[in-house]
C-alpha cells in the first residue's frame, strides 16, 4: 500500500489528473475558469510561503504585489504595443523591483512590526491604484486586457488553452519553489526562520538573504497577478485589498505554512469551497472562521503538516509493534 502511495506516484497522478481535467469538463467554461483561477492563486500563495513559511517573515503586502503584477500587465498591454510575452516578463520584473525597494526598508523591522508595516504598504498600494485615475482607471478598473499572443500555432482563445498555459506556469512555479526549499539556499532561509541570532553566528548574512527571499516571493505574486489580469481581462483595485491578502494567508495556513504542498492543497480547497458557498456570500466566513481556528489550534502546520505528523505516528506505532512481535522469534531461535 505505502509503496503505491509514495510521493512520486502521487505527483504523477496529480499531473495526469490536471492534464485530463479539461477533457472531462471541456464544455463547462465555469469549471475551467475556477480551476484556472485556483492555479493562479496557488502560484501567488507559493510565493507567500517562501517568505512567510520558510524565511519566517510574514509579509502582508502580498496582495499589493499581486496587484502590481496585474496592473503592470494591464497597463502595458492596453496602452502600448508591446508583445504580450514581453509584457508578462516586464510585469514580473517591475513587481520584483518594487519588492526590492520595499524590502530594503520593510526588512529593517521584525516579526509583528514587519507584518504591520507590510500590511500598511499593501493598503497604500491599494490606495494608489484606487486614486491614480489616469494610469489605473481608478475605481472603474482597467478593461480590455488582451489574451496572451499566440506562440506559433498555439493560441489562447479558449478556456481550455488558458487552463493549460496557467498549468504550465503553475508547474514551473512549484518546481522552482521545491528546488529552492530543498537547496542550501532553502536551508539558509529555514535557519533564519528558526533563529535569526543563531543564523548570524553561522555566518549567514540575514539581511541579504531575507531581501532575496522577499524578492522571490514577490516575483511569484507578480507572475500570478499578470496571469490573473490576462485571464479575467478586467481588473479593479480590490485585488490589492486586505481581503485578498487575508484570503492568501488563509489558504496558506489551512494548507500548511512552511510545507511544500500546503499552498496547493489550501488554495484549491478554498477556491472550490468558495464556489460551493457562493449562495451564502457574507455567511461564508461562518464556515471559514471555525475551520481556520481549528486548524491553528490542532494543526499549526495545516492540513499537510497534520497529515505528515499522522503518518509519522503510524510508522512509529508499526515499528513498536514489529519490535514486540519480533521478540518471541528470537527467543525461539535461542531455544534451538
Amino acid at each position, binding site marked *: 500500500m505505502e509503496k503505491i502511495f509514495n510521493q512520486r506516484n502521487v505527483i504523477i497522478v496529480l499531473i495526469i489528473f490536471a492534464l485530463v481535467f479539461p477533457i472531462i469538463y471541456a464544455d463547462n467554461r465555469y469549471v475551467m475558469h475556477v480551476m484556472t483561477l485556483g492555479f493562479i492563486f496557488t502560484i501567488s500563495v507559493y510565493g507567500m510561503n517562501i517568505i512567510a513559511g520558510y524565511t519566517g517573515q510574514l509579509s502582508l503586502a502580498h496582495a499589493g504585489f499581486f496587484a502590481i503584477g496585474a496592473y503592470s500587465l494591464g497597463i502595458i498591454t492596453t496602452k502600448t504595443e508591446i508583445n504580450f510575452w514581453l509584457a508578462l516578463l516586464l510585469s514580473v520584473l517591475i513587481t520584483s523591483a518594487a519588492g526590492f525597494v520595499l524590502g530594503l526598508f520593510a526588512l529593517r523591522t521584525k516579526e509583528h512590526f514587519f507584518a504591520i508595516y507590510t500590511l500598511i504598504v499593501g493598503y497604500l498600494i491599494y490606495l494608489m491604484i484606487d486614486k491614480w485615475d489616469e494610469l489605473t482607471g481608478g475605481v472603474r478598473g482597467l478593461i480590455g486586457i488582451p489574451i496572451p499572443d499566440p506562440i506559433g500555432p498555439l493560441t489562447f482563445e479558449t478556456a481550455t488553452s488558458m487552463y493549460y498555459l496557467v498549468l504550465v506556469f503553475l508547474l514551473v512555479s512549484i518546481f*522552482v519553489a521545491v*528546488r*529552492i526549499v530543498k*537547496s*542550501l*539556499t*532553502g*536551508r*539558509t532561509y*529555514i*535557519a533564519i526562520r*528558526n*533563529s535569526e*541570532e*543563531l*543564523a*548570524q*553566528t*553561522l*555566518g*549567514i*548574512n*540575514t539581511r541579504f538573504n531575507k531581501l*532575496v527571499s522577499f524578492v*522571490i516571493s514577490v516575483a511569484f505574486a507578480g507572475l500570478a497577478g499578470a496571469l490573473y489580469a490576462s485571464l479575467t481581462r478586467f481588473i479593479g483595485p480590490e485585488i490589492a485589498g486586505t481581503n485578498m491578502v487575508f484570503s492568501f494567508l488563509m489558504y496558506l495556513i489551512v494548507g500548511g505554512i512552511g510545507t511544500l504542498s500546503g499552498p496547493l492543497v489550501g488554495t484549491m480547497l478554498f477556491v472550490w469551497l468558495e464556489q460551493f458557498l457562493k449562495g451564502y456570500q457574507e455567511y461564508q466566513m461562518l464556515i471559514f472562521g471555525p475551520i481556520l481556528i481549528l486548524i491553528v489550534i490542532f494543526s499549526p502546520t495545516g492540513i499537510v503538516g497534520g497529515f505528515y505528523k499522522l503518518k509519522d505516528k503510524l510508522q512509529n506505532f508499526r515499528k513498536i509493534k514489529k519490535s514486540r512481535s519480533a521478540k518471541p522469534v528470537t527467543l525461539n531461535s535461542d531455544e534451538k
Partner: protein
Amino acid sequence: MAFIQLTGITKKFGGLTAVDNVDFEIEEGKITAIIGPNGAGKSTFFNLISGFHKPTSGTILFDGKDITKSPAHIGARLGIARTFQATQLFEQSTVIDNIIVGHRLRTKSKLYDAVFRTPREKREEQLAHQKAMEALEFVGISHLAETPVATITQEAKKRVAIALALATDPKVMFLDEPAAGINPEETDGLADLMRKLAASGITICTIEHKMQMIMGLADKIMVLNHGAKIAEGTPQEIANNPIVIEAYLGGDPVVEVK
C-alpha cells in the same frame, strides 16, 4: 601578538556600564574561561566579541584583524563560532538537518544554483552533509543524526549546539555556559569534549559557573565583576586570589579593594 586581543573594551547600555574598560588576551589553542557572579557582564562580553553588540569604546583584534565593528556574520566567516546559553536549535527538525546549514558560510551556491541544481550546488550539498556528519562524530552523537532534536536529552542538545558551531570550521569557539542544566557525570563528558576541541587546534573560550569543572579545565581564567576585570591568571592563582574570593563570597565591607 595575541590571537584575540581586546583593548579598553567598554559597553554602556544607557546609564548602565555592562563592560567596563576591559583589556584581555586569548591565546591560540588554549582554553580560556570567563567567570563571575550573575550580571557581571560575561554574556555581554561574548556578544561584543561575536559582533552582536558594538563596543562603546575600545578595539578588538582577531588574528591581527580589527573586528571591532564587524557584524556577527563576518566574524563567523573569519572563524569565530559561538553557542548560546539557551540552545536555539530547530526542535522539529532532525539533528543532521540542524547541522548541515552550519557549513553554509563556506559554500558559494546561490539562488541560480538552487533552481538549476548545478554541479556546484550538488557538490556543496554533499560537502555540507559530510561536514555535518564529521562534526556529529567529533562530539560523539553521530547515532542521533536522524533523530528529531525535540526528542533528545539536554546534554545531547548541548553537543548538537557545539557540533553546529564546529561545522562552521572555526578557529575559535565561544561557549556560553555549555554545562548549564546537566548532571555532574555529563559535565565531565563535556569537559572532555572541550579538551578534545582544544587539542584539535580550536581555541576555546567559555563562560561557566561550575567552578570544579573550570578549575581542572582552563589554562587561564578571567574574573569579571560589575563589568570590570578583577583578576586574571591560572586556576591556581584565581583560587587563591583574595579579591576573587571576596567578589564571590562577600567580604568585610570596610575592606574596599581597588
